[in-house]
C-alpha cells in the first residue's frame, strides 16, 4: 500500500529565483539562447549586424563636415572610402525649406510648431479640451502663414463655415431638416465662389493687413512633404469614413458612387493622378485661372488616401458584431448617433494599425511629387547633384532624407501603438 499521508510541519519562506534566470544574464538566456535553433539564429544575426556596421561605420564616420565640394571631400579622405558630409552641412536648410525665402523661414518653423500645438489635444486626450479651439482655428492659420497674403483671406474662408453653421441653425426651425442641410452647403459655397473675393479686396483696401506672399514654386524640401502629408492625412480620414459608410449604405446610388470612386482611385497609380493634377486639370479650367499646383496635388493625394482609408475603415466595420448595431437601434439611437457613439469608436479602434499604415504610406508617397517637378526632398537631391560642386554625391543625401522620413514615420508608428494600448478595454 502506498502511504499517502502527509502533513506539512513548517511553511516554506519565499526565496530568490536562481541567479541565471534574472537580470541581464537571465534576459539573454531567455531571449537569445533559449534553444539550439534560437542560439544559432542569435549568433548568425549578431554576426551579420557586426559585419554591416563594420562596413558602414568607417564610411559614415568621416571628417568631411567642413568640405564645400565633392573634390574637397576626396582631398580630405585622401583615397580612403568615406562619406562626404559637407553637402548636408551646406544644403540641409534647403532640404528642409526648399527655395522658401531665407528671411521668412520663421514662418514655416512657427507654422509647424503651431501644428504640434494644434494636433496635440487631438492625439492626447489628457490635455486640456480648450486647446481644441486652437485646433479648429489652425487649418485657416496654416495656409496663411505658409503662403502669406492678406489676413482677410483666412478670415473669409473661416467665415464660410460660420455662415454655413448659421444657415443651418436658422433654417432648421423654419424650413425643416433637409432644407437646412442643403442651405448649410449652398450658402458657404456661394460665399466662397462669389462674394468672398470682392469682400476680401474691399477689406484689404480699407485695412491692408498682409504678409509677404510666397509663391508655391518656392516651396520645397520637407516642409512641402509635411504640408502635403499632413493635409492629406487630416482630410482623408473623415472622407474615408464617409466613403466606408457609403459603401455599406442601403441607398443604391450612394453605394454605387462610393464603390465606383473607391475602386477607380485604387485602380489607378498615384503618379497618374498626379500627372492629371499637374497637366490635365489645366485643360478643364477656364483659361487664365490660376489653380495652385500644390493645392491640386494635395487634392489628388487626399482623394487617393481617402479611397484606401475607406477600405481600412470598412474592414473595421465588418469586424463588429451585428449585435452592436442592433443594440444601438433597439435603444432608439438614430443612424448618426449610433455611428458616432457606438460603431465608429469601435471600428476605428480595430482599424488603428491599418489607418496608421495608410498615414505612413501617404506621407512617404508625397515624394512622388518630384516626378511632376515639385521640389520635395527627392526632387531637391537631384537638383543639388546638378550643382558642379556636389555632382556624384548620392548616399549622403538619400541617407539624410531617409533618416528624416524614418523619424516621422517611426513616431507615427509608435503613436499608433500607444493609442492601441490606451484604448485597450480588452476583453471583447
Amino acid at each position: 500500500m502506498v502511504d499517502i499521508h502527509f502533513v506539512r510541519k513548517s511553511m516554506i519562506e519565499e526565496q530568490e529565483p536562481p541567479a541565471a534566470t534574472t537580470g541581464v544574464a537571465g534576459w539573454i538566456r531567455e531571449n537569445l539562447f533559449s534553444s539550439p535553433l534560437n542560439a544559432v539564429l542569435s549568433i548568425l544575426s549578431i554576426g551579420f549586424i557586426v559585419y554591416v556596421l563594420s562596413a558602414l561605420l568607417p564610411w559614415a564616420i568621416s571628417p568631411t563636415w567642413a568640405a564645400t565640394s565633392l573634390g574637397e571631400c576626396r582631398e580630405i579622405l585622401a583615397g580612403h572610402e568615406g562619406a562626404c558630409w559637407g553637402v548636408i552641412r551646406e544644403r540641409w536648410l534647403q532640404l528642409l525649406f526648399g527655395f522658401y525665402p531665407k528671411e521668412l523661414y520663421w514662418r514655416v518653423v512657427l507654422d509647424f510648431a503651431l501644428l504640434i500645438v494644434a494636433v496635440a489635444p487631438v492625439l492626447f486626450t489628457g490635455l486640456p479640451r480648450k486647446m481644441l479651439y486652437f485646433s479648429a482655428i489652425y487649418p485657416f492659420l496654416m495656409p496663411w502663414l505658409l503662403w502669406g497674403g492678406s489676413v482677410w483671406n483666412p478670415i473669409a474662408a473661416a467665415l464660410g463655415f460660420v455662415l454655413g453653421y448659421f444657415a443651418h441653425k436658422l433654417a432648421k426651425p423654419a424650413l425643416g431638416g433637409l432644407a437646412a442641410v442643403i442651405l448649410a452647403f449652398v450658402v458657404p459655397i456661394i460665399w466662397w465662389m462669389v462674394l468672398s473675393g470682392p469682400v476680401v479686396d474691399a477689406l484689404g483696401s480699407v485695412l491692408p493687413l498682409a504678409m509677404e506672399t510666397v509663391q508655391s514654386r518656392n516651396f520645397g524640401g520637407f516642409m512641402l512633404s509635411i504640408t502635403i502629408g499632413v493635409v492629406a492625412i487630416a482630410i482623408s480620414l473623415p472622407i474615408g469614413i464617409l466613403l466606408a459608410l457609403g459603401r455599406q449604405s442601403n441607398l443604391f446610388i450612394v453605394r454605387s458612387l462610393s464603390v465606383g470612386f473607391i475602386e477607380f482611385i485604387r485602380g489607378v497609380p498615384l503618379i497618374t493622378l498626379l500627372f492629371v493634377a499637374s497637366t490635365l486639370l489645366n485643360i478643364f479650367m477656364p483659361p487664365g485661372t490660376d489653380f495652385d499646383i500644390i493645392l491640386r496635388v494635395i487634392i489628388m493625394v487626399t482623394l487617393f488616401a481617402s479611397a484606401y482609408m475607406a477600405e481600412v475603415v470598412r474592414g473595421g466595420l465588418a469586424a463588429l458584431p451585428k449585435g452592436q448595431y442592433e443594440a444601438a437601434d433597439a435603444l432608439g439611437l438614430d443612424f448618426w448617433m449610433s455611428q458616432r457613439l457606438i460603431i465608429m469608436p469601435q471600428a476605428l479602434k480595430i482599424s488603428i494599425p491599418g489607418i496608421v499604415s495608410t498615414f505612413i504610406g501617404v506621407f512617404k508617397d508625397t515624394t512622388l511629387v518630384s516626378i511632376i517637378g515639385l521640389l520635395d526632398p527627392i526632387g531637391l537631391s537631384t537638383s543639388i547633384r546638378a550643382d558642379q560642386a556636389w555632382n556624384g554625391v548620392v548616399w549622403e543625401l538619400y541617407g539624410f532624407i531617409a533618416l528624416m522620413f524614418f523619424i516621422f514615420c517611426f513616431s507615427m508608428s509608435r503613436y499608433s501603438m500607444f493609442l492601441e494600448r490606451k484604448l485597450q478595454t480588452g476583453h471583447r
Partner: protein
Amino acid sequence: MSENAVERQVDRSQMEVSDKVAIQITHMNKWYGSFHVLRDINLSVNEGERIVIAGPSGSGKSTLIRCINRLEEHQAGEIIVDGTELSSDLKNIDKIRSEVGMVFQHFNLFPHLTILENCTLAPIWVRKIPRKEAEETAMHFLEKVKIPEQALKYPGQLSGGQQQRVAIARSLCMMPRIMLFDEPTSALDPEMIKEVLETMIQLAEEGMTMLCVTHEMGFAKQVANRVIFMDQGQIVEQNEPNEFFNNPQHERTKLFLSQILGH
C-alpha cells in the same frame, strides 16, 4: 432545456393585466427573400401582460419579437405599439424603440464603454436627460439588478450573468413601457441563469409588460400569464400556463412539451 425555478414565492400583488392594449399585431406576415418566416400573426398584448413565447428553433419566435421594435421589417399586416403604427417612417420607429426595451441573447453591451456609460448613453442622447440625472437613474437600476459596484468596469470584466443584468438595467434606464427578451438566458452557464431570471421575475412583479422568448419553462410557469407556442412561423397554440403545460391541445405542442419536459 432546464427547469430553473427560482426558489421563492413570486409576489403577484402588482401583476395586474390592464385592459389597455400595449401591442396590437394583425395579419402580420414576413418573408426573408422568398422564405415565409412569419405567417398571419395575430396577437394582442395588454399592458401588464407577461407573455412567454416558446417553440422549436427556426419557428420564428425571435423574428416575431424583433418585428415589434423593427429590428426586422414586416412586409404585410399591421403592428401597433402603444398607439403608434410601425411603418417605414423613421420618426415612428425611433419613438417606438425608445419606449420598447430589448434584451438580447448575447447581451450586446458596448465593450468600449463602462457599465455606467452603457446605461446612460441612450438616456443622454435620445431622451436628452442631463448627465447627472441619467447617472443617478443608471445607478438606481444597477442597484436593482444588484451590481452597482461594477459601474465603472468594462463589460469584458464581468461574467455573463452580470453582463445580462447590466443589459437589462441599460434597457430599463430608458424607462420603457414594454420589455422584449430574446432568449436572455440561452448563452449563460446554469448558475448564472438563475440570477438573470430572478431579475426578470422582479421586473414582472413590478407590473412590466414583458414578451420573453425563452426555453425556461420554470419561468413561464412562475411568472407568465400567457404562453404562446410557435412552429413554422405561426402561432400554433396559446393559453394560460397551467392549461398550456397540463392540457396541451395541438399535436405539435404535445410533442414539444414531451420533449422538453419529458426527461
